[in-house]
């Protein structure tokens, strides 16, 4: 097809050609073309196959509103050909047709599938015989959908990102109203963002003779400092946050005022064969002519309810298209049927009552069923719509204070610039910028009269589509009402009308009209479906943005990598799980020395005159009487007396305590402390130094010797005893050294500025090399602590565990003078200790060497579950399998036999209530 002579305002650069392929065939386009305009100019009329019936679909709106031209570009499905600019070398392919767009085997569903494919057919037709459902499901899943993702994961990935944008005013919609609103607000001093779906702002004016004005306003907007986002779809409104999708970027725009200038959406007419290629909206026809220099047909019939159709007829004539008939509903005539096999070949026109029927041969039917204000985003932002009887559509009735509307969406399509000017000025003035605009003058509504289209015309002549995306016909709506789905929300879910890629743009109003016709209700009573995001179809990848996975790493982490550690997640930290042989690493701690990175421990500085009292209120044991330089273990309980966390507390001086927490509990404990501190208003300051200090635990029979070589401290047991804490230089850096042990051997926990992590780690390993020191990871640490029956909060305890049940009654000081968090609950728990139904945490051994799964059930004699295994490991040091489990309190006695059910296995175990290794702590204290 040859192009029309250059059109004023066209987007084409006729001197530059662009080559691409469509289904493997080369296509020559002009720079500025969209895929659709280039294909149409090349003679293509079928652009896709429909969702259910696989009917041919051609260009309809040419504005990215409808589903008819969805294609795959370079393997990515769901691209609208009518808005996607051509690029040299791009590979465009059709969707939803096998083996080809021209010969689609699934088109058989259109010819014979009607009775088998009513609304909800997959739950009706394909349920018997039941045993075939897996086959049906596979078949249905195979034929459903619009296109396929590329098979290889790396081919499906593309760079996406979020961009947060704060603004004073966001204008959605870049037609004349939106542009003028943006300019007015920006000139008043506001920071303005304008988002428009089109490749250039201007909206309907670009193809309606207003291109010069539109482009001039776009320039003015940019000059006024407006950030203009093109090909940018606003997806929704979430309490003031409007996500705007633009290519690979999702702009998260948070504006103090929103101006919606989203225009209106031209509505199709519902008649027999209204989906046939060659049936186009008047706006689509005008865009093809004005922007791309293409005559959409040779003989055209125009069917309209307003002046839009008449204006399109004028544009067609100017483009040399013969307009053979005009059916204006205002004069009582409309289109009843489109005839043709692959493409429109004739139109049947007539009155709504069927009178004066006339068949007209043509290759183009231009329809215009009026326009519906695009209110979805307004509604999502809190606006309310109401039915406008005169116009036959739903219009804005109420807006929230921070939302404004301008142009056609506000009912001001007759004077969009004045409407925009006022909205922009109001938005700015509400922010204290510029002057308040004068009240509006002139007649409220100067729009030309329109006719309200019928719900359907030509029923009985063929399929009349209400929803093109989902292939929902007028008959389907009728059936759904017959079956009891008589509200618009139910009908939507049952028929899926409005749930396709157009998001109700083209089908919401027709569906409501059909519902009204079927139920006898008026449209106002039926109302609209709830407006939901996304307003435009958007790839999930764009919503996901960049994958941000905040991982904490200790300052020693590079060394763990170098040592070949298996690194795993532990809470929000990346930790060395082991260095290849966890059992050997654990054994090294018993035989010589081991070094583990425990930088992940939570670390809090609590200081102030009331610091001791503060801790006494938080913990069930005492800290105010702790001597400076000494350490005490603490279990933090909730107000329900349940174990929240545990750790050690070292008193540094009269007013300063150093509190450690579990690695995963650090954040929660810090919040817990802060929360109570704010409530109690004590003279206490809290500082979280978790990430500021590295910490390592040097443990084993040779630890003291190694420690002695790293510091000037006298490390003898007499001077530096178990549970002492001392400040010292270790390997040349300032440190706090805690003589504590979690792994059962003499140990030193060394806390020092994180910036020295690698150097101190290196120094300790180097110093300990003569003593066969070995780094050990999290897994060997778990073996070692289990030997000592030290609990892991969250592993061995749950939200019901109290210190009494967890074999730590000694830590609860109910005789403390001060009240403390959880005291009341713990007093009650103390009364129930050992009582019927109470559980106790015990150790167990398994003589036969099987390691039960953590979480395995402990069974009663008759086989019912009465408890649970929380931890279990094989200990090479002890030569047996050991574990911990919750059992009924009456079974918490040394030597009691228990049965563990682990999937199909039954394991016999024996209860032990004291640590497996060094039960009296003699090694630890030596």
């Amino acid at each position, binding site marked *: 097809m040859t192009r029309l002579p250059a059109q004023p305002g066209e987007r084409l650069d006729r001197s530059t050609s662009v080559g691409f392929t469509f289904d493997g065939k080369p296509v020559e386009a002009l720079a500025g073309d969209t895929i659709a305009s280039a294909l149409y100019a090349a003679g293509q009329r079928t652009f896709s196959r429909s969702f259910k019936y696989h009917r041919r679909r051609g260009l309809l709106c040419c504005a990215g509103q409808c589903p008819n031209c969805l294609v795959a570009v370079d393997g990515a499905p769901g691209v609208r050909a009518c808005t996607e600019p051509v690029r040299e070398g791009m590979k465009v392919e059709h969707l939803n047709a096998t083996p080809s767009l021209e010969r689609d085997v699934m088109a058989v569903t259109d010819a014979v599938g009607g009775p088998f494919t009513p609304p909800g057919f997959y739950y009706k037709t394909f349920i018997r015989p039941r045993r075939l459902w897996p086959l049906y499901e596979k078949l249905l899943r195979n034929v459903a959908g619009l296109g396929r993702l590329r098979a290889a994961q790396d081919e499906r990935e593309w760079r996406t990102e979020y961009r947060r944008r704060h603004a004073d005013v966001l204008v959605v919609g870049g037609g004349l109203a939106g542009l003028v609103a943006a300019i007015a607000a920006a000139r008043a001093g506001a920071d303005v963002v304008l988002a428009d779906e089109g490749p250039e702002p201007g909206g309907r004016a670009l193809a309606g003779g207003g291109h010069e004005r539109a482009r001039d306003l776009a320039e003015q907007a940019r000059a006024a400092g407006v950030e203009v986002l093109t090909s940018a779809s606003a997806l929704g409104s979430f309490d003031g946050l409007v996500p705007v999708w633009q290519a690979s970027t999702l702009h998260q725009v948070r504006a103090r005022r929103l101006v919606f200038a989203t225009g209106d959406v031209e509505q199709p007419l519902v008649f027999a064969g209204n989906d046939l290629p060659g049936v186009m909206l008047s706006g689509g026809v005008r865009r093809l002519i004005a922007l791309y220099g293409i005559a959409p047909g040779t003989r055209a019939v125009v069917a309209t309810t307003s002046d839009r159709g008449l204006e399109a007829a004028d544009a067609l004539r100017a483009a040399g298209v013969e307009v053979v008939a005009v059916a204006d509903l205002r004069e009582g005539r409309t289109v009843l049927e489109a005839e043709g096999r692959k493409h429109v070949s004739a139109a049947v026109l007539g009155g709504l009552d069927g009178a004066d029927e006339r068949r007209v041969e043509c290759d183009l039917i231009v329809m215009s069923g009026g326009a519906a204000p695009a209110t979805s985003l307004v509604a999502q932002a809190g606006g309310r719509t109401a039915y406008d009887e005169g116009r036959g559509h739903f219009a804005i009735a109420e807006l929230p204070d921070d939302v404004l509307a301008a142009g056609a969406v506000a009912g001001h399509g007759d004077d969009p610039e004045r409407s925009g000017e006022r909205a922009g000025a109001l938005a700015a003035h509400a922010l204290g910028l510029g002057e308040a605009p004068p009240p509006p003058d002139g007649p409220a509504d100067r729009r030309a009269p329109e006719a309200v289209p019928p719900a359907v015309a030509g029923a009985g002549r063929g399929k009349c589509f209400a929803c093109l995306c989902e292939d929902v016909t007028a008959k389907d709506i009728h059936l759904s009402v017959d079956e009891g789905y008589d509200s618009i929300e139910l009908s939507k879910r049952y028929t899926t009308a409005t749930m396709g890629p157009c998001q109700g743009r083209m089908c919401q109003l027709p569906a409501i009209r059909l519902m009204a016709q079927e139920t006898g209700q008026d449209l106002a009573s039926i109302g609209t479906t709830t407006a939901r995001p996304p307003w435009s179809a958007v790839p999930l990848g764009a919503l996901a943005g960049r994958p941000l996975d905040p991982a904490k790493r200790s300052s020693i982490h590079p060394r763990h990598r170098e040592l070949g550690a298996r690194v795993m997640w532990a809470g929000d930290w990346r930790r060395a799980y082991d260095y290849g042989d966890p059992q050997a690493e654990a054994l090294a701690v018993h035989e010589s020395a081991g070094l583990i990175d425990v930088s992940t421990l939570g670390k809090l500085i609590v200081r102030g005159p009331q610091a001791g009292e503060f801790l006494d209120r938080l913990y069930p044991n005492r800290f105010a009487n702790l001597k400076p330089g000494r350490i005490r273990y603490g279990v933090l309980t909730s107000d329900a007396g349940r174990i929240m966390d545990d750790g050690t507390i070292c008193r540094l001086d009269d007013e300063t305590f150093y509190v450690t927490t579990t690695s995963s509990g650090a954040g929660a404990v810090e919040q817990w402390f802060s929360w109570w501190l704010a409530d109690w208003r004590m003279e206490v300051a809290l500082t979280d130094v978790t*990430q500021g200090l590295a910490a390592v635990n040097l443990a084993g029979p040779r630890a003291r010797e190694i420690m002695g070589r790293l510091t000037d401290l006298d490390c003898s047991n007499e001077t530096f005893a178990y549970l002492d804490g001392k400040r010292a230089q270790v390997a040349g850096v300032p440190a706090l050294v805690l003589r504590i042990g979690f792994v059962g051997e003499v140990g030193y926990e060394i806390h020092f500025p994180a910036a020295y992590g690698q150097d101190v780690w290196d120094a300790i390993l180097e110093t300990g090399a003569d003593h066969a020191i070995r780094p050990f990871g999290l897994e060997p640490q778990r073996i070692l602590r289990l030997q000592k029956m030290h609990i892991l909060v969250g592993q061995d305890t749950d939200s019901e565990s109290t210190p009494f049940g967890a074999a730590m009654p000694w830590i609860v000081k109910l005789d403390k003078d001060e009240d403390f968090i959880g005291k009341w609950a713990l007093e009650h728990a103390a009364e129930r200790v050992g009582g019927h139904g109470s559980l106790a945490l015990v150790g167990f051994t398994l003589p036969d060497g099987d390691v039960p799964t953590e979480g395995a059930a402990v069974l009663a004699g008759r086989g019912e579950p009465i408890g649970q295994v929380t931890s279990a490991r094989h200990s090479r040091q002890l030569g047996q399998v050991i574990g911990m489990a919750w059992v009924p309190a009456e079974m918490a006695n040394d030597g009691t036999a228990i049965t563990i059910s682990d999937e199909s296995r039954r394991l016999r175990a024996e209860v032990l209530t004291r640590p497996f290794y060094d039960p009296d702590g003699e090694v630890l204290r030596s």
Partner: protein
Amino acid sequence: VNALDFLEPSGAAVARSPMEGQAIAAGARMELRDGWNVAVAYDDAEGERLRTSVGWADVSHLAKLEIQRPGDLEPGLATRAHGAWWCRVTRDRALVIGDPAVREQVEDAVDVTTALAALTIAGPLAREVFARFCALDLRPQSTPVRGFRPGSVARTPGYVLREDADRFLMLFGSALGEYLWTVVADAAGSLGGGPVGVDALEREAARA
């Protein structure tokens, strides 16, 4: 004797930023300054980067002190004194960030130098870089020069201080250093930016 002296990075060993490895991998020339191994320079394009696009520099070596009595420090606006920024965080808490010598000016502070890592992001596209991972409103009308904003950076707690029109100091947990470097490098790299050394930062500040 200060019971918390073990918090201060005043040892004989070399203090290292959590982003040291990434800086070196990106081609940094390192120099020992005030006990820290500091990325002082990368390449010849640093100045151009800072003037025309964006650069980021690891400034984790800056001293950071937490004080409990902020006095009359203004919320949301940092004060420059004694070679440091004085930033009020809450009613009862403030951060002092800057020259190590500022320790002499502060009594009763907790040294959080190694608890917080720091990046300076500078250049005309600095705000665009932040927009890729941070929802704070860093426009001049909301965050003017000296503006100090506690908030979320790349889904972690942090602080942003606008040191100059196109220069921001970002503080975050030091254990997240490697992660934040990756995030900033990804965001800034996509905008044509790159790492810069602290010397280039100083030169550009002097030029301005």
